[in-house]
């Protein structure tokens, strides 16, 4: 009979490999899902996306506009690759860079006292000032960046095209 475990690691760390593969799968789906959804929400609203990047006042006005136009599609592409588990390491590196950029942007806005909100608000019979949730956003994006960093280091996971096609 063929020995199916021809390529498995020596016994003892097979369990560890499997656990890390599960962690990789989770990281892939979390980061990929978040990026894909974020991209899909913005891809039909180029003006909104452009203004969102301009609001951080980190890039020159027109550069920020163009970045805003392209960002949703980049998110969709990177998110899709992660969900499929194809070119996982490369997609993870890009995804991490994106998340770090957001962390830097939010931190900078917070430090400069910018109040960034998109759209308008109002309700409850009173006029409320803009509510910024910087700490929460920073924590969230840092977590996603960690998922990406982990995958960049160890892109192996279950249910991925990388594994199916390339035995990764």
């Amino acid at each position, binding site marked *: *009979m*063929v*020995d199916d475990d*021809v*390529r498995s690691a020596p016994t003892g760390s097979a369990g560890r490999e499997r656990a890390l593969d599960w962690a990789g799968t989770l990281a892939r789906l979390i980061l990929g899902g978040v990026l894909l959804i974020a991209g899909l929400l913005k891809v*039909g*609203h*180029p*003006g*909104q996306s*452009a*203004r969102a990047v*301009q*609001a951080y*006042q980190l890039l020159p*006005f027109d550069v920020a*506009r*163009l970045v805003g*136009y*392209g960002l949703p*599609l*980049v998110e969709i*592409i990177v998110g899709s*690759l992660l969900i499929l588990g*194809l*070119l996982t390491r*490369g997609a993870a590196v890009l995804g991490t860079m994106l998340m770090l950029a957001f962390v830097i942007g939010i931190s900078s806005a917070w430090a400069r006292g*910018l*109040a*960034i*909100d*998109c*759209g*308008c*608000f*109002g*309700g409850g*019979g*009173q*006029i*409320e*000032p*803009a509510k910024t949730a910087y700490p929460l956003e920073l924590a969230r994006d840092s977590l996603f960046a960690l998922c990406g960093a982990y995958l960049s280091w160890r892109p192996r996971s279950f249910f991925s*095209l990388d594994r*199916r*096609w*390339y*035995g990764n």
Partner: protein
Amino acid sequence: MAKNQPAPQDAVSARQAKIQQATKGTHRGGPNPLVIAGVIALVAIVAVVGFVVINNKNATKAASEGGSALPKGVSAMGQPFVRGTPKAGAPTLDIYEDFQCPGCGQFERILGSTVKEMATSGDVQVRYHVMTFLDDNFQGKNSSRAANAAFCAADDGKFGEMHDLIYANQPTQEGKGWTDEQLTTFAGQAGLTGAALDAWTTCYQKQDHNQYVVSMQDATSKDGVTSTPTVRLNGKDLTLTRMDAAAFKKAVLG
């Protein structure tokens, strides 16, 4: 492997094991990974660049729709509209609003008449920055159309009246906006009749001030205003929480 004569299925599975061993570590079921990476990278770059170019083209096209005439009383592109004639030394109140914004409608309901009083008395320099970003959120053109209607009314000195009427008639359903008929009715109610109304109708249909409207949205982005309503007193953000007319008057006039 067995040295003596193997059974047929043993030979097949033995061969499979050999193939697996030989292809271990290289691609076995999928296309060449370098080719895949190259193709994906190329397609991605082309797609993103193309997408940026198309969006930029659309934005440029939208920004050059309509006419580039400045409304009466406005000195340059991107400049806000001053309501009334302010006295010398009057404090400056910058109001950033979008006609479709419910929060702005609320602001106008609670403090609108106070602002109007300040503007018409000249005690305060009231400057309206009319934003149209909600058109993108609601995927329509209602904010631009309302803005165009208001600035066409400005040409006959009726911006304030038109502005107040549009806010007083905000639809309950966000994004529904106003029809051309409704806006024409407001123009009449604002005091535009006869030749003045004809001039307004021509101005509105040709969107004579549209490029000014676009320039004002861009200017507000540069001013760092990202939500509405935003009110600034002498350049500093004014917090409107729980402010009634009396508190507002005190904050602005001291």
